[in-house]
């Protein structure tokens, strides 16, 4: 066996925590309270925070999954999930290679990216018209 092969590979990554999960959860709690009072939304960029693998796992297990799970297929897959806490949504963007390019926690009634966008409606009207025109009996 060559020297490289003699090095044991650790499958389980070290369980390091940065202690940043708790303040993050407090921030979400405050944002939820504000949202309840005056409807102001909040978005946290999870990738911008120093969190270890263990922290991410802990965050996932605390927030969990709720009733809604949507998959957006545009320039790669994006998973939009409501966590088990209503009002806290998890939005994970991946590119066409499957690599995660954005990870957000949104406090909102519904993440805006799920809603249909205006420019697409304009294209959609034109598209539907073309489909209608192609159907037999359309010229009636």
């Amino acid at each position: 066996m060559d020297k490289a092969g003699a090095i044991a590979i650790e499958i389980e990554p070290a369980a390091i925590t940065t202690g940043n999960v708790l303040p993050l959860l407090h921030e979400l709690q405050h944002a939820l309270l504000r949202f309840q009072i005056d409807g102001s939304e909040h978005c946290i960029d999870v990738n911008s925070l120093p969190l270890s693998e263990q922290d991410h796992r802990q965050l996932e297990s605390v927030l969990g999954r709720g009733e809604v799970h949507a998959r957006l297929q545009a320039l790669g897959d994006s998973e939009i999930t409501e966590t088990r806490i209503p009002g806290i949504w998890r939005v994970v963007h991946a590119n066409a290679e499957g690599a995660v390019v954005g990870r957000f926690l949104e406090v909102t009634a519904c993440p805006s990216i799920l809603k249909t966008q205006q420019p697409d409606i304009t294209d959609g009207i034109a598209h539907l018209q073309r489909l209608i025109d192609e159907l037999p009996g359309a010229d009636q």
Partner: protein
Amino acid sequence: MKPGLTVGETLRAHGVTRRGFLKYCAAVTSLMALPPSSLKAVAAALEAARRPSVIWLSFQECTGCTESLTRSADASIEELIFNAISLDYHHTLQAASGAAAEAAREQAMHDNYGNYLLVVDGSIPMADAGYSTIAGISNRDMLLETAAGAAAIVSVGTCAAFGGIPAARPNPTGAVPVSELITDKPIINVPGCPPIPVVITGVLVQYLTFGLPDLDAQGRPLAFYGQSIHDRCYRRPFYDKGLFADSFDDEGAKKGWCLYKLGCRGPTTYNACATAKWNNGTSFPIESGHPCLGCSEPDFWDAGSFYHALSTPTEAIGEAAVYAAGGGLLVGAAVGAAHQRRKRKAVDSHRKVSLDDIDEGAAK
């Protein structure tokens, strides 16, 4: 090549829906270290941005920066950046060569005079123009000629930004960074050996969206180079607790402890490696168990061993101390001997006082 279209129009023409575009803007906002609340502003600016013509000049380089960039272009989101910019000249990537290539460059310069973006990788040899030439034109001449009509210059890689490996001692080619030759145009330094691919594209996008970004004292965009590796390192809790790996692959290293003792330059290096990471966020050197080399800092090749801790002196002070001790002992012994001699002379020349001396003194 349609320099007239905006970025938004170009992306739409490639079949990117609004959702796709917003998703890309969210990723880019995160990459530029802006808060999510900036998303609207980023989307609006990117949509309306005109595609600038880009001329890419490669000088004394290893092509690692271009490789880094083209790896990122495998991912379809970053590939769109190339559709969003009009890359009019890149002698490694373009299809044309020889006279046709140079004609293309001159045409692009002429058509977009004052507005094109000049991207440079590699350092410029000044000891002898013949060390690096393209189509018979020296690097220095090509840089000065092309920079004259550029709106801004992006120095990609530590070679273009600070001189890099060609400038390492003894610098046989007289390599200099771009900033030493061009002093009248805004220069954005994007150092790294190579720079992180998404940082290169992120800087281009940032330029498209907001124009010139805020730069630090070394001319690097604060969005990507504003924090040191140490400040964002996930192994920081171990540094604070005083838990260090003593050698490669020892117990501490396997537990993921801090690599300070192994020579990590994280504390004095500014780059986005700890957050953006490499290979689409897979990992970065420290996470893979190797100390940071400090490759986005000037003179990092000459800054002492990569494997000696930052706090340690770079020269052999143990040896110097031994010589100093020997020398000190000799000097001290000599001084001590001189003192002894003076004391003995004083003792020898000591004359006992006699009655006559007292009488003499009393008479005066």
